[in-house]
């Protein structure tokens, strides 16, 4: 059954790619590709595809998309490789469209004028990424190939960015106005998110051990950590302000450490509280689901309980524990952005500053790195979990 279907799906016309390709073709012609703003706040004028990049480039974009649609219709066996090349190359060179757009439309004598990315460009980027995911899935490619393609695309974007043609892009302008703050936000964000994950990993391990030792503790611990997860983040941050400021007022030593009602202390506490549920659940499940027959085999070989735990149970449980760390890390990266509301810093501070000033590019400067961090953490930890899976020695 599975052999048949895989052969069939490789030679039969693919229907997903034409749908995505036609959608991209329609949207890139219908929506504005780029926007020119006279300064930071004033809403700009949008430019459609032809007006933005001119006839030849518009033709090239349409040709590439139409080519993808045609290629995926052909009942060829090896069409996914050329498709991969075509879509990958288009993604890698996509920022060139913005460079051409800025070169054609930016007035020379207006130092505050800036170009920003239009909805058409975002749609093109999104749909091309979906096509890439679909092609990689159909090829059944390994993780190595996927990473290589991602590296090529990101490398090419950085290379185009360093060329200087995108200086006028508002996102780049916002970054260039505050490179130090950006770097500081990055470190704060990482420190808060990973600090919380680290602390909660330790706590969760202890809690899971307690749950394994005594059955009576299982329900209360799981109940408590899932209760914490239910309360919305904004409420938790808000509820921590009053007790922490009272504590800081009562004990000057705490105040000297920087613990106040707002800032990093309530943020870290809340993040740890949120991280406990996925961590405890996965650690507990992983450690209890090691098959009893394996433990018996270990005992038969003369292992004591301590060796049994460290040499048998923990290594077998590790992939599931790492999966818990992955869920927790992604969640913590997102919640750290909310923590900017109580003055904890990080990329969220750009988001909320930008929202307050109606400066959309500042919002993007906060939101895009947050998403990138989450995706990166997801990819790395998925890889780590996969590499930790024990492989049978007799395979």
């Amino acid at each position, binding site marked *: 059954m599975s052999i048949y279907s895989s052969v069939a*799906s490789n030679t039969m016309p*693919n*229907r*997903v790619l034409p749908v995505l390709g036609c959608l991209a073709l329609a949207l890139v012609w219908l929506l504005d590709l780029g926007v020119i703003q006279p300064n930071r706040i004033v809403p700009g004028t949008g430019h459609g595809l032809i007006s933005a990049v001119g006839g030849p480039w518009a033709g090239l974009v349409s040709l590439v998309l139409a080519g993808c649609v045609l290629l995926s219709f052909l009942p060829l066996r090896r069409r996914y490789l050329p498709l991969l090349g075509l879509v990958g190359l288009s993604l890698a060179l996509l920022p060139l469209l913005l460079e051409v757009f800025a070169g054609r439309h930016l007035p020379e004598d207006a130092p505050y004028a800036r170009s920003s990315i239009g*909805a058409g460009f*975002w749609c093109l980027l999104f749909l091309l990424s*979906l096509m890439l*995911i*679909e092609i990689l*899935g*159909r090829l059944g490619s390994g993780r190595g190939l996927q990473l290589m393609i991602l590296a090529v695309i990101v490398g090419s974007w950085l290379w185009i960015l360093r060329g200087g043609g995108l200086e006028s892009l508002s996102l780049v302008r916002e970054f260039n106005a505050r490179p130090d703050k950006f770097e500081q936000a990055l470190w704060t964000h990482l420190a808060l998110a990973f600090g919380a994950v680290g602390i909660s990993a330790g706590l969760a391990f202890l809690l899971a051990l307690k749950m394994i030792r005594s059955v009576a503790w299982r329900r209360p611990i799981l109940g408590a950590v899932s209760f914490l*997860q*239910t*309360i*919305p*983040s*904004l*409420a*938790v*941050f*808000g*509820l921590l*302000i*009053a007790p922490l*400021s009272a504590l800081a007022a009562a004990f000057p030593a705490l105040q000297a450490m920087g613990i106040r*009602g*707002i800032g990093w202390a309530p943020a870290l506490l809340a993040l740890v509280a949120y991280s406990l549920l996925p961590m405890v659940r996965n650690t507990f499940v992983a450690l209890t689901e090691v098959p009893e027959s394996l433990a018996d085999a270990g005992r038969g070989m003369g292992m004591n309980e301590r060796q049994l735990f460290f040499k048998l149970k923990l290594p077998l449980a590790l992939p599931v524990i790492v999966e818990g760390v992955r869920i927790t890390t*992604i969640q913590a*990266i*997102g*919640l750290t*952005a*909310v923590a900017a*509301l*109580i003055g904890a810093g990080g990329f*969220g501070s750009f*988001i*909320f500053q*930008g*929202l307050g000033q*109606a400066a*959309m590019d500042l*919002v*993007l400067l*906060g*939101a*895009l790195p*947050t*998403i990138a961090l*989450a*995706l990166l953490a*997801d990819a790395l930890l998925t890889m780590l979990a996969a590499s930790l899976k024990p492989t049978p020695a007799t395979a």
Partner: protein
Amino acid sequence: MRVWLPPVMLTVLLCALSAGMPALEPLFEWMQPDKQNVIYERESFLFLLQNHLMLVVISALVGTVAAVAGGIFATRPAGRDFLPLVSQIASIGQTFPPVAVLALAVPVLGFGEAPILVALILYGLLPILRNTLAGLEGVDATVRQAALGMGMSPFQVLLQVELPLAGRVILAGIRTSVTINIATAAIGSTIGARTLGDPVIAGLVNGNTAYVLQGAILIGMLALTVDSLFEAAERVWDRRFLPQTAG
């Protein structure tokens, strides 16, 4: 009926707190003696609660319909081609932080209630979609074959066999989605939606801890109430369907 007791009590408590917050003024005055106003008065708490709930309910309804329809489409023979991509989107999409999705909605759609609703629908769709796919894919192929062999049409099999069997998993997805959306809608008050997040944000801006506390308590209560409602619904579901499948 005992399963419905906690949600009913929590609902009564939530409404009483929203309506009677001004009565607690002495308490907040004791907490925050240096402020003139200790009760948030720009909007009534009942109005904020109602608006918050409406955003969440609308996004949950639209999201559920869209996600279940999408999940059904991707598991039918006609839509099988789309299954790998749809399940990839559902899992990759969930790595996007909700705040970032909310923030990205503003440049595209502007400030106000509409962008929040769109962001809530799109983001809330993902857990439901993933659970719908998992639920429908989890239906035993032999059960489906048996139903077809009994002379049911594929449509009848979907309605009378597959969806009831997948329903519990789909319900769990809706619960996750609603929990996330209550939290995201609260943050939505930074982009101009009037939700229970308003007092919290106003309190943070003015340094008024009493406002923050009032908003935070109500948001937390709302989340607990809705969650206990789902808990009760899941219990009722289990009681009605599980004994049959076990026996």
